[in-house]
């Protein structure tokens, strides 16, 4: 079996429990797609950058090239909103006025779901042909961990239920439509072979499937299952490995009852960032078919 994930949609959201290796998987995937000739944007959500530390560069909203065809960008709710409003009002000074206004500042900080909508609005803007141009074959989002991720995705759903009409309702509806279309959006759920991450993975996949779409790829990370199983050993290292192995096998069986993993990434005992990304990249294949034209 070819132990690789193929990407079929232009938008890929990478999520999973905290600490399972989401950022690494997203970086590996983006790197592989870029090396296969696609124009790729890797997006980090938040205000503080992980990749900045990782690649030893500082990043902002404007995409920065890290290698051929591969760009990196960091998005926060506030910067996405700024970007969108800048596009909408066309006049920079007016947009500045808006963001410098005290009331608006507080409102943007606190108004329910505004930031979530701004992020998802921008994320889907390329395929919707709406808003500032986002010209990439694939956009890979290193998104939030499970709970926050679902809250993010549910924000436009809730907003559409509350406000059906006007720009807010229209945009929310269009965003949900994009997120629910398996041809446009796919979800990569990264998991470890441990009890908690596996249960969280199953619950998350169930939610994504019933509320959005089923183009979901489960990525198992840090697998030790390629190591040989032995009956008995008095060696401390081996008995520790065996215990881990049986725990991992158990978690694997549990996962398999619900979802078949798309890829099983072995545990790489490596701490050099770029080498780790290259290892991850080996487990992503090319795109199934070209991104959007």
């Amino acid at each position, binding site marked *: 079996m070819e132990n690789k994930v193929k990407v079929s949609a232009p938008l890929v959201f990478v999520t999973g*429990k905290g600490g399972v290796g989401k950022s690494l998987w997203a970086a590996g995937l983006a790197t592989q797609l870029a090396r296969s000739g696609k124009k790729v944007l890797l997006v980090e959500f938040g205000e*503080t950058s992980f990749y900045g530390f990782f690649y030893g560069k500082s990043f902002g909203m404007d995409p920065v090239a890290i290698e051929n065809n591969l760009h990196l960008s960091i998005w926060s709710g506030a910067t996405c909103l700024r970007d969108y*409003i800048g596009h909408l009002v066309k006049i920079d000074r007016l947009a500045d006025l*808006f963001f410098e206004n005290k009331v608006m500042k507080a409102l943007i*900080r606190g108004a329910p779901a505004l930031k979530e909508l701004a992020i998802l609005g921008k994320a889907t803007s390329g395929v919707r042909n709406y808003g500032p141009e986002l010209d990439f074959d694939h956009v890979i989002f290193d998104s939030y961990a499970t709970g926050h991720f679902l809250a993010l995705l549910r924000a436009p759903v809730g907003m559409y239920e509350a406000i059906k009409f006007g720009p807010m309702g229209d945009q929310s509806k269009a965003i949900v439509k994009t997120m629910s279309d398996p041809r446009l959006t796919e979800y990569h759920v990264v998991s470890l072979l441990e009890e908690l991450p596996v249960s969280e993975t199953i619950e998350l996949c169930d939610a994504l499937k019933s509320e959005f779409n089923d183009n979901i790829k489960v990525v198992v990370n840090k697998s030790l299952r390629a190591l*040989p199983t032995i009956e008995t050993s008095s060696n401390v290292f081996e008995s*520790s490995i065996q215990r881990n192995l049986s725990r991992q096998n158990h978690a694997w069986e549990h996962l398999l009852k619900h979802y078949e993993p798309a890829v099983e990434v072995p545990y790489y005992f490596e701490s050099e960032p770029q080498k780790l990304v290259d290892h991850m990249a080996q487990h992503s294949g090319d795109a199934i078919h070209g991104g959007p034209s």
Partner: protein
Amino acid sequence: MKDLFQNTEVIVCTGSGGVGKTTLSASLGVLAAREGKKVLVLTIDPAKRLATALGITSSNTVVRVPGQDFKGELFAGRIDSVEIFSQFIRNSAPSSDVVEKILGNRLYEQLSTTLSGSQEFTSLVKLYEEKNSGNYDLVILDTPPTQHAIDFLHSPEKIYALFQSSITKWFINNAEVGKSVWSRLIHKGTQTVLSVFHKVTGSDFMDELSNFFFSLKDLQDNITQTCKGTQELLKESTTRFVLVTSFDRAKIQEATSFYSELVGGGYQLHTTLINRAFPAWYLKPRPDHFSSEALEKSYEEQMKYYSARSQVFDQYQKDFSDRLNVVMLPEVEDELAGLEGLVTVANLIESPTSSQS
């Protein structure tokens, strides 16, 4: 480690998601109870197994952890954010009409679930309440999973800013005159800004939002007071922070900046717990015999990996050991179950195999 509990009334366990914060919070509770304290551990969304170990059912109520035999006593509670938020509104609103108006607002659900900082806010509300109840010697708070440890500290500020700033006053001043707030604005500059906001969101959203803020005006005093109270509580001399982190360069880097931010902000970071820093076999001598070549190869590879990591740690230790405790915890090999599992981890924290300043 022991002095963590001396003159301490609140311990706040922070750290990014997936580092084992909840388990370690509960284990710190075990340690304190063993020392004779009456302790409450407040957790957010504990895994099923941990909830069972602590005897927590689905509700918000605090329970005495079953099957314990400590010098002190251990209690545990689960923080249900949505429930606490609505409870907070019920307690703060002057009448049931106002309560219904707020809870019935179409944007309310969005606010209580997606407003950044709402989960942090409710956990602080709960902490504040339990600490002031006087029922416990010590309250340990397991903070909500954030992307970065530092996010937690900024959450009360965010909520506070929202209600402190001109925004609520602005709604109140204008809404009382009647009808739509938006049309009554005097300042030309604000009008221009509003037209942009209108273009982005539309009238329906703006009306709903103004209703929402207007109905919140009665809560303003209480929210302001609570935010102030919780911020003060976090800076009190009897409040100590524990940072839980995993062991990789990015996380260690993050811990370093978190340390500076805490100290700069006037908080007290007492201990950094590096969880699952190395496997238990790492400190043992090299085995004489391996069952297969693959396993021997894997041993060499892992050994190399963990020694490289411990060099990173040594640097960190050098930079910080004079200022704070750093405790490295080995991986626990056996499945942890029940209260016994927490006792096992508590023993590890008490006497980890490695350095402690």
